[in-house]
């Protein structure tokens, strides 16, 4: 097991290198120059040349990548070209917001998907199954921004201020700023709508997937054996069937993290949340290369690590699975 984890961790290195290199090259291939934005209305060619030299932007792309990488291994993620702020510091301020959003949106998705899938599988081809399937289809069809706007109009405008429309309140003890009020209640109020907006689409997908797995599992011999032993329906479904049916669902959940990060960009922008999604999109729009690299790096690491954790979860769900 230890060897497996070590091997997987080592595999992360080339993956991260490849992702950051591709992002690095792509960012420099698209039109737009951060120096123009930096100099603004004081732009002149002479200063632009000096600034490019100062930031090493006049060097070949691969040399620039090498410099960035060299600094990275020393723990220096660089500083934002536009704001002058250290990238790592900003990433660390924003990471908890997005992590919480992603975890809670996945929780929302599972809270909807698991009961809906169980009901759908156990009462196949009944009105309950059709309802669960239909709701799943609706969920898949509603993009995050649309769900977000609807929630916003209902809970912030319609029910005047029931839930806050934007911003963020940190959990107690986690606030990374000077001026800050940590509050569990405030945090929950702020994260609820974004998590639901982001989780609905995932819920729909997971419901369909889990329902199909459940249908397969409840027809297997070990489930029949469990029933024949006289076990009541509850442990049969929850302990024997669901646990095994979850394996493909967990795999997809890991892969969904990528989509959730993409969805977080939309949801965080809509709800004006200070997370990594808005950090990434702002960096791309401003062509702030250092920030884009920081965003690519942290999301790539998060994606790979989460998928490693997903793989390790299999051993818990199915003890027959062993990693060498």
């Amino acid at each position, binding site marked *: 097991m230890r060897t497996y984890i070590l091997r997987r961790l080592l595999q992360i290195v080339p993956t991260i290198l490849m992702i950051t290199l591709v992002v690095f090259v792509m960012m420099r291939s698209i039109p737009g*120059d951060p120096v123009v934005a930096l100099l603004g*209305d004081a732009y002149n060619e002479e200063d632009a040349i000096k600034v490019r030299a100062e930031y090493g932007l006049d060097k070949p792309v691969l040399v620039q990548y090498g410099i960035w990488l060299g600094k990275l291994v020393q723990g220096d993620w660089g500083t934002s070209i536009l*704001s*002058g702020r250290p990238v790592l510091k900003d990433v660390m301020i924003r990471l908890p917001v997005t992590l919480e959003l992603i975890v809670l949106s996945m929780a929302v998705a599972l809270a909807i998907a698991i009961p809906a899938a169980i009901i759908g599988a156990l009462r196949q081809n009944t009105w309950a199954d059709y309802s669960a399937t239909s709701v799943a289809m609706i969920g898949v069809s509603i993009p995050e921004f649309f769900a977000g706007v609807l929630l916003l109009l209902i809970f912030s405008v319609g029910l005047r201020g029931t839930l*806050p429309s934007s911003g963020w309140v940190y959990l107690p003890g986690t606030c990374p*700023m000077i001026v800050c009020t940590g509050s569990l209640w405030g945090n929950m109020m702020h994260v609820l709508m974004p998590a639901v907006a982001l989780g609905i689409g995932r819920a729909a997908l997971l419901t369909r997937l889990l329902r199909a797995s459940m249908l397969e599992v409840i027809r297997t011999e070990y489930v029949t054996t469990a029933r024949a032993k006289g076990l009541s329906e509850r442990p049969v479904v929850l302990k024997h069937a669901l646990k095994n049916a979850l394996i493909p669902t967990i795999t997809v959940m890991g892969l969904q993290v990528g989509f959730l990060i993409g969805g977080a960009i939309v949801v965080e922008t809509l709800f004006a949340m200070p997370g990594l999604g808005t950090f990434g999109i702002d960096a791309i729009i401003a062509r702030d290369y250092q920030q884009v690299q920081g965003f690519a790096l942290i999301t790539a690491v998060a994606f790979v690590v989460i998928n490693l954790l997903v793989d390790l979860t299999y051993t818990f769900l199915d003890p027959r699975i062993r990693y060498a």
Partner: protein
Amino acid sequence: MRSIRPVLGLLLGTIVLLGGTAARPADAQAPKRGGTLRVAYGNEILGMDFYTTPGYEMVWVATNVGCGLVSITPDGKFFPDAAESWQISSDGLLYTFKLRKNVLFHDGSKVDAAAVKFTFDYVLDPANRANMRQFLGAVHSVEVVDPHTVQIRLKQPYAFMMHVLAVYRMGMIIISPVVTQKYTPEERRAGKPEALVGCGPFKLVEWVKGNHLVMDRFDKYFEQGVPYLDRVVIRTIKDPVTQLAAFKAGEIDFIADFSADHVDSLRAQNPRVQIMTGKETTPMVAMMKVTVPADGKPMSKDRAPHAIFNDIRVRKAVGCYGIDRKEIVKIAYKGQATPWVGIIPPGTMDTVDVNHLCPYDPARAKALLAAAGYGPQKPLVFELMTNTEKSVFNVIATVIKEQMARIGVTANIRLVDKPSWMTTATQDGAFDMYIEDLASLLTVDQNSYLSASAAAWNHSRHVDTKVDDYYARYAREMDPVKRKAIARELQEYSADKLYWNTISGSPFYQVAQPWMKDYVYQAEFKVQYRKVWLDK
């Protein structure tokens, strides 16, 4: 020497540019002290270095954290800031400012003549790349007369020196010599509070990009009793729907730049809300490129004619007679903007209505195109670049495409993002026409930095030095009546040559909750909370 104040009106003329609706209540109440003002910006603050960071968002912070020698009222009158009085010599070359004795930086050190001189020297040093430097070309030297007297000597008379000091960009904000030398430009840009010590009514407490900016009242501000607010918290809410929702839910007191698209619905749903606007000071342009680099190197001084729009007949056919500005305003702005041809927007000082020079006349446009060799056999096709920053750009581009079709011209729309547009336009990239609303203009003089032939932001890349002569004459003319005449000539000349093709004014809105009191609207130029108070 004579005092400027008695002759201010004579010297500067009547400024009509900021005819906005002030938020002052009719029944004046005694201001209440305390409270936190919650502000929303539509765009992110890019950085915090007053003199190098671009964007209005930083300016709107700088004018609260910093103080200058003088400031300006919405109707164009200068009033003392850190300077208590000033005199201008009769030849217009020497400006003498007497400083107040009780002005302190936020770290407790005194604002004196040495600090003012340091500020000018810092801005004028090319190594510091200060964006205010471009406005100080007339300055010869700055001298300390005594600890509270400073003199600015000019190379030649400059009618807008006081505007530069008070309001061009953000005005000349006085910086602390000690603090500026102690901290790096990166630390200032990153918003480190100790590195951004001003002498304004609010001191910077914290800026966390993407999260918030917090300013607290500076208790030792030189003007007794103000500011009234304890704190100002600024957040960025980019999505207009969320901005509106936050405002309606009472989470926000003030939106510094409100989307014109939502003004009507906000007004209808909340009659008590304060909606502030004025005559437009920002032009919406359909810029046509006139020259291209002859050697293929962007920004080259060796210029060749642009294949399409160097021909004045084509420029006039497309930009003048072929564009129905009234229709554009009706569709894109629901009639809430002014159709405009002149190079200077309708709300700017010394603006002139030259709309009659470019009436919508498709038949005349077709005739001019035919004279230039375009017709059914050789149809004119050009690329119309627009960007994703504001949806109104794309609406205007679509309407222009339709209007072009009416005169037999094909406009192919190319949609890019803001940095791509900015890079293309500013770095002499390839384009035929673009749609954009450019910088807000207080004076005609300000536009010289965008449209003189040698200006970096001369996006059409015209090479007509007659335009430069107009600007130079205008800037040096101290008689407001004669200056207005030069402004008229420039605007008529510009409408005739169409180096700069204005479509309309670009409206600007700010909204405030009914309980936000005594905010004075000054368009994009100044957003100040010095005398704002909350009645709740």
